[in-house]
C-alpha cells in the first residue's frame, strides 16, 4: 500500500508490494495478465514504496509531447511511448484481462471504439457484451451500470462528453453515492464513471462543461482527474480496482499527449496529489489541463527568479491535504489555478479547506484563478479568454510574492 507516515487514509487497500517477485521484463513486452500477484505500487512522485527513494521521474516538460530529443543518442530507455488516450486504453485492457468482471458500457464504445478511441479494439477482443454499446439515455445506462455493479460486475461507464452525465445526476447522486450507505453496507457499487470534459477547441457551451464542481458534494463518490499518460493509466487501474464509485475526469485537449511510461505494471493512488515541480516560493495547486498552463508559466517565472512549487492535486474528492499542507507549510503562499467556474468550483472548496486547516501558515490570502461564471462561448478569441492563461498565472505569482 502506498502510504507515507501520516498520509491521508487510503480508501482502497491495494495488494502489498514484494520486490523479490518483480521481474523486469524485456523492453518490448508489456506485462499484462502474467504478473497478477506482483506489481509496483508507485507513488505519485515516481518513487517506489518501502524502498529508499530511487531517482525521481519528474515531469519537467510543460507539454509532454516534446520527445527527449537531446537524449536520443544514448542507450535506449526502458518503457514505451504512447498517447494519453492509449494509456487509458492500456490500463483498461490490463484490468479487463486481469478481472473478467470488468466491463465497459457507453455510447459508441463498441465497434466504433469510442468517440476518443479510448476503447478502440476492445469490443473485438472481449466481445460486444463486455464492451457494450448503449442507446442514448445517460441516466438509464448509468443506472444499468449501478445495477450491474451491485450484482458483482465492475462496470466502467463512459460519458461521451462529461457534460452529458448531467443527465445521469439523479442516478449518480441518489443511487450510486447512496446505496452502499442506505443498504447498511449490503450492496457495494464498484463502478467507474469516466469521460472527457473541460473547455476544448470551440466545442460550444454544452460540450465544455466542468462537472467536477457539480459532483464534488455528493457523499459516497470519489473523484480523480488525470493529466498525463502516466497518471491516466495509473488512475484508470486504481479506479477500476476501487470498491467505491469513482468518477475519472479526462480532458478533451489532453488525449494526444505523448509520454514514455513504464513497461511494468503500476497503479497510482487515488487519494494522492502529484508533485510536479518542487519549489520554495509559492505553492501552485492545479489539475488536469491547467497543469500545462501552470508549467508554461513556471518557465517564465523561473526566468524571472521565482521558484514555484507545482502540485497537480489529481484527487478532487477527497483532497490530499497532507501533500498540500506540507507544501503550504513550506512556501506560505498559495495560488490555485483551475478551469472550473469561479462560483462553487473545486478552487472554492480547496480555498476553504486550506484556510481552515493551514491558516496559520499563510503569509498572504489564497489567490484562486478560475474561469469566469459564463457559459463557454464558441468564438475562439472569447473561448481563449474564458480559460486561465499563463500570463495571468505569472502576474498572480508576482502579486502573491510581493
Amino acid at each position, binding site marked *: 500500500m502506498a502510504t507515507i507516515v501520516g498520509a491521508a487514509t487510503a480508501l482502497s487497500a491495494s495488494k502489498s508490494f514484494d520486490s523479490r517477485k518483480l521481474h523486469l521484463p524485456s523492453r518490448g513486452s508489456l506485462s499484462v495478465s502474467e504478473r497478477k500477484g506482483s506489481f509496483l505500487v508507485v507513488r505519485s512522485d515516481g518513487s517506489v514504496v518501502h524502498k529508499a527513494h530511487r531517482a525521481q521521474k519528474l515531469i519537467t516538460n510543460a507539454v509532454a509531447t516534446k520527445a527527449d530529443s537531446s537524449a536520443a543518442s544514448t542507450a535506449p530507455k526502458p518503457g514505451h511511448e504512447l498517447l494519453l488516450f492509449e494509456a487509458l486504453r492500456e490500463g483498461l485492457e490490463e484490468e479487463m484481462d486481469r478481472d473478467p468482471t470488468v466491463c465497459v458500457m457507453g455510447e459508441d464504445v463498441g465497434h466504433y471504439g469510442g468517440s476518443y478511441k479510448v476503447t478502440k479494439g476492445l469490443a473485438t477482443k472481449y466481445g460486444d*457484451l463486455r464492451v457494450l454499446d448503449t442507446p442514448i*439515455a445517460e441516466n*438509464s445506462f448509468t443506472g444499468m451500470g449501478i*445495477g450491474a455493479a451491485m450484482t458483482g460486475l465492475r462496470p466502467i461507464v463512459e460519458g461521451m462528453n462529461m457534460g452529458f452525465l448531467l443527465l445521469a445526476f439523479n442516478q449518480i447522486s441518489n443511487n450510486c453515492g447512496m*446505496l452502499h450507505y*442506505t443498504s447498511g453496507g449490503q450492496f457495494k457499487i464498484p463502478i467507474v464513471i469516466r469521460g472527457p470534459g473541460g473547455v476544448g477547441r470551440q466545442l460550444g457551451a454544452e460540450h465544455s462543461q466542468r462537472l467536477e464542481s457539480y459532483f464534488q458534494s455528493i457523499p459516497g463518490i470519489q473523484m480523480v482527474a488525470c493529466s498525463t499518460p502516466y497518471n491516466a493509466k495509473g488512475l484508470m487501474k486504481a479506479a477500476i480496482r476501487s470498491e467505491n464509485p469513482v468518477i475519472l475526469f479526462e480532458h478533451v485537449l489532453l488525449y494526444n499527449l505523448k509520454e514514455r511510461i513504464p513497461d511494468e505494471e503500476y497503479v497510482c493512488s487515488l487519494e494522492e496529489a502529484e508533485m510536479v515541480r518542487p519549489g520554495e516560493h509559492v505553492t501552485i495547486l492545479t489539475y488536469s489541463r491547467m497543469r500545462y498552463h501552470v508549467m508554461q508559466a513556471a518557465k517564465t517565472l523561473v526566468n524571472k527568479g521565482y521558484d514555484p512549487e507545482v502540485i497537480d492535486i489529481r484527487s478532487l474528492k*477527497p483532497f490530499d491535504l497532507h501533500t498540500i499542507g506540507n507544501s503550504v507549510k513550506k512556501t506560505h503562499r498559495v495560488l490555485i489555478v483551475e478551469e472550473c467556474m469561479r462560483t462553487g468550483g473545486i478552487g472554492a472548496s480547496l480555498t476553504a479547506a486550506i484556510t481552515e486547516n493551514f491558516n496559520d501558515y499563510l503569509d498572504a490570502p489564497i489567490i484562486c484563478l478560475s474561469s469566469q461564471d459564463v457559459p463557454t462561448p464558441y468564438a475562439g478569441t472569447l473561448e481563449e479568454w474564458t480559460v486561465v492563461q499563463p500570463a495571468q498565472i505569472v502576474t498572480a505569482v508576482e502579486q502573491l510574492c510581493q
Partner: protein
Amino acid sequence: QGIVLDFPGGKVAFTPEMRFISESPVERVHCYRVLNDNGQVIMSSKFKQVSEEIAVKMYSDMVTLQTMDSVFYEAQRQGRISFYATTIGEEAINIASAAALTIDDLVFPQYREPGVLLWRGFSLQEFANQCFGNKDDYGKGRQMPIHYGSNKHNYFTVAATIATQVPHAVGAAYSLKMDRKKACVITYFGDGGTSEGDFHAALNFAAVMEVPVIFFCRNNGWAISTPTSDQFRSDGVVVKGPAYGVRSIRVDGNDTLAIYTAVHAAREMAINENRPILIEALTYRVGHHSTSDDSTKYRPVDEIEWWRSARDPVARFRKWIESNGWWCSENESELRTSVRKQMLHAIQVAEKADKPPIGELFTDVYNVPPSNLCEQEKFLRETMKRHPQDYMPDVPV
C-alpha cells in the same frame, strides 16, 4: 402494392393509402384472469397448477402481509414509527409473483412490494427492525421505514426515487447473462413510475441487449392523487412493451392464480430465450399512498370501500383454497390471531432495541472512512461530550 424497400432498420412494405394509426385502440388489450370474483376457476381458463402446500403458504403470506400492514399503520398513527405505506389491495401481486420465482432471481422493488421479501423468509421482527431503524436493521437505521433491503434474500434496497430501480434491474440482468446464470431479474413499479424516463430507456435497453428481466407494473390506478387518466393517454402500460420490442401481457392484479401463472411463464421465457417481459397487473390501491396522505380527499370513500371488500384479492383466493378443502375458518382465525400477536411482539422488541451507535453515521459512505469523515466524527463526539443535555440519551455512542 407489394413493393418492399430496404431502409436502415429492415424491409418495409409500401401502401398508397395514407392511414394514421389511431391513438386509441378500438378495444383495450384483454386482461388474463383465472378466478372469477367468487374465487372459482373460470371454465376455459388455463393456469399453472399449485400444490396445496404452495397455495396455503401463498394464502398465509397474504394474510400475514395484510395483518402486518394494519399493525404497522396503527403504530404509525400512534406515533411509534414515523412513516408507513401499506400494500392493501396488492397482496396477490406481492405474494403470487414472489411464489412463481426462485430465491436466485433478483428483486428490484419500488416500495410497495414487501410481500416479496415476506415470501422469501424475511421475518416480522426484521421488518419491524427496519421500520424502527434500530441497531438490528440491516440498513443500520439509514433509511425511512418500508425501505427494506436484504442481500441474502436477493432483494435490493428500496430507494425513494421513482423508477431508478428499473435500469438497475436491466444492469443486473446483463450481469446474469454474462455469468450464464439460470436466473432472472424482476423489477416492480407503479403506473406513475412508467412516466419516468428511466422506465422507457430501461425497456429499450433490455430489448436491445436481450436480457432476462421481468418488468412488473402494478397499475393500481393512482400515483398519490394523480389518476392514470392524468398520467398517460395510452391503453395502460401493456401497450408500451411492444413499442420497445418487449413481449407483454396484461393480467388481473387481484387474481392470485393469474399472476402466478403469468410470472411463471415470464420467467421461463426470460431465462430460456434471454428476453425481457412486461407484465401489467391491473389492480387498485386500497390504502392511502402512505401515512402522509389522505386519499379520501381526491377519491370517493365508497369507491375505496368497494375495492377493499368486494374486490379483496385475499378473500377471493381464500374462496378458492377453501373450495379445495385446503382451508377453513378455524385456520383463518387462528392465523390472524397468531400473526397479530407476533406483530405486536415484534414491534415491542424493535421499539425497545437500541438505535444504531453514532459511529454508524460515518461508515459505509465509502468502504473505509476517509480522513475528512474521521475528523467529522471526532468533532461530533466532542460536541456531544461537551453538551450531553442536548443529545437524546437513548442514542448509544
